[in-house]
């Protein structure tokens, strides 16, 4: 992070505020994905879920839905799509990467078929920033992101439900013998990930005056990258929510950071990939040399 000390302008308050607003939805989505990965599964369909939820939110706003209704609708639709994934993974027993690969393609193409790439326009005045002024709206979005983060820290560290996720992720069979129902936990985790994606979609949608049906393309990779950089093991059961937070922040700073350092922005993807590899490689190194004392290895090297 010391890199960005070279560009003092980067730390101007307004710049940080808009960056934080843009990052909040990614953070919320990454929270959902981190639960899935902690449970030893993976979900690559959240980008498509995100797009579908955004369009639903936009259409509901056109018909005059209030902020509460919009949030409930988005989380409901997201949760439903998550339930499809969960049922196929936990109920039928198919591998999660294949299931979510299939649902990713299916949702995305259904949306394209239905909307034909059309933007949802002519949204009421009260839609953007939930009808508030821009600055207070920004704070609302950031506040939602931070409270989700706080809730997740509390849930994963201090609630039995959160610990169940870790238990199932480390060893489903042992968890079953300990009286946890691994299939139920897996199912609920997918539903929760869908609902979080819905919430993220509505937080993202209110930043603009119309809804782009292509929104959320590549979000799954962004979220998984943040989770992995944050030190969560893809083998499940190991990692912390605060680490994911650090991962989200780090990856979000690359793009704007490049602009402020006057570097060509085309390097963003390459640097992102480099950071992911570096983070997991340092994790691997520390695991090999046996100096693994903290749960999260990756973020210290960032």
């Amino acid at each position, binding site marked *: 992070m010391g890199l960005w000390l070279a560009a003092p302008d980067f730390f101007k308050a307004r710049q940080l505020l808009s960056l934080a607003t843009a990052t909040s939805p990614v953070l919320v989505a990454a929270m959902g994905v981190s639960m899935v990965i902690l449970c030893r599964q993976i979900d690559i369909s959240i980008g498509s879920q995100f797009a579908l939820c955004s369009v639903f939110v936009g259409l509901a706003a056109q018909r005059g839905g209030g902020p509460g209704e919009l949030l409930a609708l988005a989380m409901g639709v997201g949760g439903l799509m998550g339930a499809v994934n969960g049922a196929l993974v936990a109920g039928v027993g198919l591998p999660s990467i*294949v299931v979510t*690969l299939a649902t990713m393609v299916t949702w995305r193409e259904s949306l394209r078929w239905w909307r034909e790439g059309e933007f949802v326009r002519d949204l009421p005045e009260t839609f953007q920033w939930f009808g508030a002024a821009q600055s207070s709206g920004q704070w609302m979005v950031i506040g939602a992101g931070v409270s989700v983060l706080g809730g997740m820290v509390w849930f994963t560290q201090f609630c039995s439900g959160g610990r169940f996720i870790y238990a199932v992720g480390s060893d489903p069979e042992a968890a079953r013998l300990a009286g946890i129902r691994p299939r139920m936990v897996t199912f609920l985790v997918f539903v929760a990930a869908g609902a979080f994606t819905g919430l993220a979609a509505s937080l993202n949608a209110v930043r603009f005056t119309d809804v782009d049906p292509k929104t959320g393309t590549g979000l799954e990779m962004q979220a998984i990258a943040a989770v992995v950089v944050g030190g969560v093991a893809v083998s499940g059961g190991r990692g912390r929510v605060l680490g994911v937070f650090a991962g989200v922040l780090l990856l979000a700073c690359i793009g704007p950071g490049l602009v402020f350092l006057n570097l060509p922005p*085309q390097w963003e993807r390459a640097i992102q990939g480099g950071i992911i590899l570096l983070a997991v490689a340092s994790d*691997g190194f520390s695991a090999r040399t046996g100096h693994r004392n903290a749960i999260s290895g990756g973020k210290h090297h960032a």
Partner: protein
Amino acid sequence: MHDRSGWRRWLGIELVLTLLLCMELGIFSRTATNFWTAQNFFEVLRLSVEIGLLAVAMTPVILTGGIDLSVGSLLGLCAICFGKLWRDAGLPPLVAGIATIGLGVGLGSLNGVLVTRLRLPPLIVTLGSFSLFRGFAEAITKGVDNFTNFPASFLFLGQGYLFGVIPAQLPVFMLVALAVWLLVHRTVIGRGLRAMGYSPEGALYAGLPVSSRLMWVYGLAGGVSALSALVYVAHVGQAKADAGTGYELLAITAVVLGGTSIFGGKGSVHGTLLGLAVLVVMKNGLILSDQPGELVGIVTGVLLLTVLSGELLMKFLSRKSEVRRRERLLKTR
């Protein structure tokens, strides 16, 4: 392990896919115009070569229990590097092509090094290189550069016809597919790959050189991706940074549809080819039947889930009948 002898051996995913393919052919021969012509047949083959190469190279990777998400991005990067070597370094296409394949092998081996030396999960390593390779392609071209005007002798690889009908890239594909098939199904190495997929520990204690084999598998995937990049560039006639976006998912879909277990150990190259055939025939048929292109994605997703669920169900039923058979045997004694 489940004993697959006699007629039971054919009651697998291959049969399901063959039936599916026949069904597709039957439906589309009625609904689609110009579907049942030799010209269209070869056109379908031509369009499936790039994805097919990736899918064939992906099969051994998935057999070892790994995955390679970076092949699509590597295709893009190799296409750019080929264009760069040919136009800016002034190399003849043949030399540039060989250098590109070397680059592909090298970058694929980079995945292999991270997977084997640092014992990192392949999903994460290749997710990282997925961004890294595409990012380099974007950085080299600054997002706008585009290589065109390749010589006709090179474009022949992607657009020409042998003997007037056979697309020029088809022999290349068949050669690679045959080589990988022989490697996986007729050599000790291929058997070792399955063993590694079933149980990496067990393979190690059985004396298999697991690390170096994995390196070779990822290197092979990289090299074939580079070859696929050459075919792609010759086919489309230009090289841009976004070449091959999303191809990795199509390739994985073909492999998984073809009955290769995503957890490794089980699967076949001919299954992959069948899966690929089902996918490309469906795409071609739907488009020739004047259906919207989006339907292709939807049907692909649903098909993938249905075939896999069907396979699980069949396994469950055959295990049940096996149990019943044994019970009967016990009673008669």
